[in-house]
């Protein structure tokens, strides 16, 4: 009896070891910025009653139902319940818009809807309404995998984004990749350099004391390398977002995330 027990436990041990090795081999080297935050910031993001990004989500929910424009239509009039209709939407953006004849990000799509369907003036970029509405739509995809569309029309823009990501610029002559590929996980002054996956935008950044989009974050990086930032809504930002989202394919959406 004894030897067989020993044998079984050895066997189960061997199985356990091999699964550990398999897990280590298949483990995704990509890390969301969430994993490298302090425990307190992580707790803030996990708890919806402690996450100040939820204020934007609540505001967005109100805007979703607000009847605006000359046609007095709301988002809900066409899309009904956002929890159903917008599920997974943010995970697919930027996508190709035939109306625009180019790639649009989620915020661009919201403004396109406002202009063409609601006949209302577009929200100012990076304004509180647009951030609120995109946070509300983004939250409906929380926990889902980022799934950029396989659309051949997007490919040239994605390649443009990749080129921008690897292009040195600014007085300091840095590319995005110089920090976020070569030195990710290390520190720039006291702050950890993340891998730069746009998993939780629009997000509440403690440094901003408010919610902001990926474009605001990219703008901060461009200023950091002393390059001239593109204007909000510029095609360069959309191209970069396309590339970053394809780089983060399969990672979970965290909107509205918290970041230091």
């Amino acid at each position, binding site marked *: 009896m004894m030897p067989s027990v020993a044998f079984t436990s050895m066997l189960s041990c061997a199985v356990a070891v091999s699964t550990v090795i398999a897990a280590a081999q298949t483990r995704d080297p990509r890390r969301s910025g969430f994993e490298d935050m302090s425990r307190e910031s992580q707790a*803030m993001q996990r*708890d*919806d*009653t*402690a996450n*100040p990004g*939820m*204020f934007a989500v*609540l*505001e967005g929910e109100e805007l979703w139902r607000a009847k605006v424009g000359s046609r007095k239509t709301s988002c809900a009039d066409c899309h009904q319940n956002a929890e159903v209709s917008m599920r997974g939407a943010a995970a697919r953006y930027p996508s190709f818009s035939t109306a625009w004849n180019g790639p649009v990000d989620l915020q661009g799509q919201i403004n396109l809807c406002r202009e063409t369907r609601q006949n209302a003036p577009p929200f100012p970029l990076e304004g509180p309404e647009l951030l609120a509405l995109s946070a509300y739509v983004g939250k409906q995809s929380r926990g889902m995998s980022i799934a950029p569309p396989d659309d051949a029309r997007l490919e040239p823009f994605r390649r443009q984004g990749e080129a921008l990501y690897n292009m040195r610029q600014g007085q300091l002559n840095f590319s995005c990749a110089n920090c976020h590929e070569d030195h990710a996980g290390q520190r720039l002054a006291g702050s950890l350099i993340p891998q730069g996956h746009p998993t939780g935008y629009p997000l509440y950044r*403690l440094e901003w*004391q*408010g919610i902001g989009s990926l474009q605001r974050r990219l703008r901060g990086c461009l200023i950091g390398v002393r390059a001239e930032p593109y204007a909000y809504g510029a095609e360069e930002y959309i191209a970069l977002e396309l590339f970053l989202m394809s780089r983060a394919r399969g990672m979970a959406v965290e909107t509205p995330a918290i970041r230091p």
Partner: protein
Amino acid sequence: MARVLINLPKAKRGEIVEIRTLIQHPMETGYRPKGDGTSFPRDIIRNFVCKLNGIEVFRADLFPAIAANPFIAFTIKAEEGGTMTFSWIDDRGRSQTETADFIVE
């Protein structure tokens, strides 16, 4: 005045519970320059009070250098249930009061 998020858990009698509140407020320090030589006037929440059935159970005074959207968490010993009121008052004299039912089993 603003949006408020309150996390008030159910409690067992005699248990110590943590109550968490978050209020939307800019908490303007009064030191941020406008660009024309003047500063944005100070506008912060000065005071937070929590009452249970009209009796004060927690109070906090707030000062500059507290970030926007202040998050206040505190613990109380659950002895009786009832109506809990939370009120915030800011520099402009605006006040916000929220009520919630505190359930003690």
